[in-house]
């Protein structure tokens, strides 16, 4: 079980670190023929500030007041040869950091990401200490484990599963 927990924890951490977030796409290289996808890639870093939507992604908002003209502006900037980072920086300069879909890089992004991780870590430490205290409360004879208990030895067979199920259901029905 310890292994399982460890394995699960490792898996969760690894997937958070290794796998790229689903909403993100690869870096766009400015090319001569501009596709809508290239514009959307840049726009997905930004949010719409029209005021009538809940700061939706600039890549998907359909308001004609802000999103559509700003996407056109991104298109023009891309054709002019500007890179993704440069365009995003210009947006930040014009509209402030609130135009960024994620907290701005540096301290903000670090705090933004580390807090949920820290909460999870605290949580697992608490769970572990609860489990340890529950184990410690075990009466002496049971802690000296040697022979498998009849229940665990028997539950390999079908008939004991039936008994177990019956016990479970009897105990558990409302």
């Amino acid at each position, binding site marked *: 079980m310890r292994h399982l927990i460890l394995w699960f924890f490792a898996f*969760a951490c690894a997937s*958070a670190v290794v796998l790229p977030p689903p909403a993100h796409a690869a870096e766009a290289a400015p090319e001569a023929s501009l596709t809508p996808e290239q514009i959307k890639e840049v726009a997905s870093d930004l949010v719409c500030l029209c005021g009538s939507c809940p700061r939706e992604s600039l890549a998907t908002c359909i308001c004609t007041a802000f999103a559509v003209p700003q996407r056109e502006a991104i298109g023009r900037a891309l054709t002019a040869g500007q890179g993704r980072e440069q365009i995003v920086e210009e947006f930040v300069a014009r509209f402030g950091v609130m135009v*960024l879909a994620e907290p701005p890089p540096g301290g903000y992004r670090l705090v933004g990401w580390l807090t949920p991780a820290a909460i999870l870590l605290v949580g697992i430490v608490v769970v572990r200490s609860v489990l340890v205290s529950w184990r410690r409360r075990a009466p002496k004879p049971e802690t000296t484990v040697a022979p498998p208990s009849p229940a665990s030895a028997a539950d*390999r067979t079908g008939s004991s599963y039936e008994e177990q199920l019956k016990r*479970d259901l009897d105990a558990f029905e409302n």
Partner: protein
Amino acid sequence: MIDVGYFALCLALAMAGYAVFASILGARRDDEGLIRSGENAVLAVFGLLSTSVGSLWYAILTHDFQVEYVYENSNLSMPIQYVVASLWGGQNGSVLFWGWVLSVYSSAVVLFNRYRYRALMPYVVSGLAGYSFFFCLLNLFVTDPFQQLPFSPADGRGLNPILQHPYMAIHPPILYAGMVGMSVPFAFAMGALMSGHLDNSWLRAARRWLLIPWTFLGAGNLLGGAWAYLELGWGGYWGWDPVENAAFMPWLAATALLHSMMIQERKGMLKVWNMILVFFTYGMTVFGTFLTRSGVVSSVHSFAQSNVGPFFVVFMAVTALIAISLLVVRLPQLKSENHLESLASRETAFLLNNWILLGILFAVLWGTLFPVLSEAFTGDKITVGAPFFNSVITPLSMGLLLLTGAGPLFAWRRTSPASLKHNFAVPIAATAVTASAAALLYELHAYAIISLGLCGFVAASVGLEFYRGMRSRHHSTGESYLRALTGLLAKSKRRYGGYVVHLSIILLFVGFTGQAFGTDREMVLRYGETKRIRDYEVTFETLAHSEEPGVTISAAALSLHRQGEFLCTLLPERRFYHSSEQNTTEVAIYSTFREDFYLILVGDAGDGSAMFQIYLNPLVNWVWAGGILFVLSSLWTMWPTRRDRSLAAADRASLRDPALAIRQSVVGSTVPS
């Protein structure tokens, strides 16, 4: 007529105050008459608030625009169903309606427990009446829906047009029923702490009363998603808007509670934790209401904001103070009765389940509050949008799926290594099969492969439980497998109904996974022009305008083909509402279980061309199917069993000799459990 409503509201405030006072005094003096009087006052609050709501409804339906709320939220040209729904379409009316829903719950609690949980009931009643008192106070002094204008306008301003949608008409009441109902389990927990009857009887009552709002809250969130998908026109159903999060967080807390309650019921462990979790679940509903209505966060739901923030802060602080000090006083009586025999047990799985559900909750809470904190402490206005939530929540929800599948494979108390191997074999094989099928069939993102693989894992683990239960019944009763299945579902509603709820969660996750590989395209089409999107061909046939009372409509007609085969005609609309000067979209969707072809009319250039936004959204129907199964299976799980019915019959019988019944059931029911 409107004065009747106001007067009833004033009386309701007095009655709620009296109910708190009478119940507590009755319990202290052990005066049954006073306790009953408190309970009757709760029924009176229901009657009075019904009168109040009825009178506001009457004003709305008769278009009495002198009433400010009616003027602000309805007008003569609105269809009747939205006129009816405007009762909860604005802040003041929805607070009144909220209070009324609370009075329905409180009265139901009183009526169902006339002869049960007698030691707890006075405190339960005082808690619920105290909450009612708070809402009446809000309605009278901050959000008065009965305020009148000095003159009578000819027409009203109308309900916000984006709310004029069938799902939006029913989404708020269902969500309110979920948010408000969480106060009942909290009241039972407080009842247990105040009365000192800390055995499991409060837990049994709380569990039953938790399932109802939990189902409502889940359904309300999904209805909100369906509304956003059809009405807001951005191609998705969940945008991590602060208000969506506010309704999602209590659901997560309640889900954790539903699981951890089982450990206390079976093993007498986690008593303190369950108390904290009940507090927290209720606290999240109040906090969520505060977030939505105080204007602390900027949100799509800003139509329901006003100056109620400080009242909520005081209410939350007082409630938290009372709850925590009671818990501290009773701590010595909340000792665990059992010990953990093995780490490889259902108990451990449930603890991890609580850990990950609360991990998700805190991540959502953090993402919601981070901009508020940042602005408060540094003055920087930042945005925490969907990319943040998606990248934090996705790995966590994969962990949750893994536990959903693994939990049932562990036995209570201990599971031997041999039976673990035996139990995990089929689900692991199923994971491998679904993951490789997903990887082969589509060129998917890694997350999508993991997610679909884990869906296979959970499905197999639930299937295995059903198969073993069926086989067991088949052997013991000789029933056919099909009869054994219906027998299991009928007899053990809680266990097998719960597994069906898990299946509905899988359907939801299959749908969520679709979000990872959708595509979208913006395009300008001229009349008669055809363009290809993947294997679809879409032809812009025509565009028409029409004037209807209060609204200008532009509607386009497009025909949709796939590989030469005609699929359907799509009719997206764009509407302009004159009174509110607001544009809305009506999307057109060609929907199958494989994917949705989702089309929005962005704008009409006026020169025979128009701009469209098209989304190919895979697997969205799985979400709706999962939602329907979630509601049905939750209802099935809480539907009364034969034992419940016999218990109710015993309660009815005891009506003939109430004195005896009360003596028999100081705590708990008349039937020993």
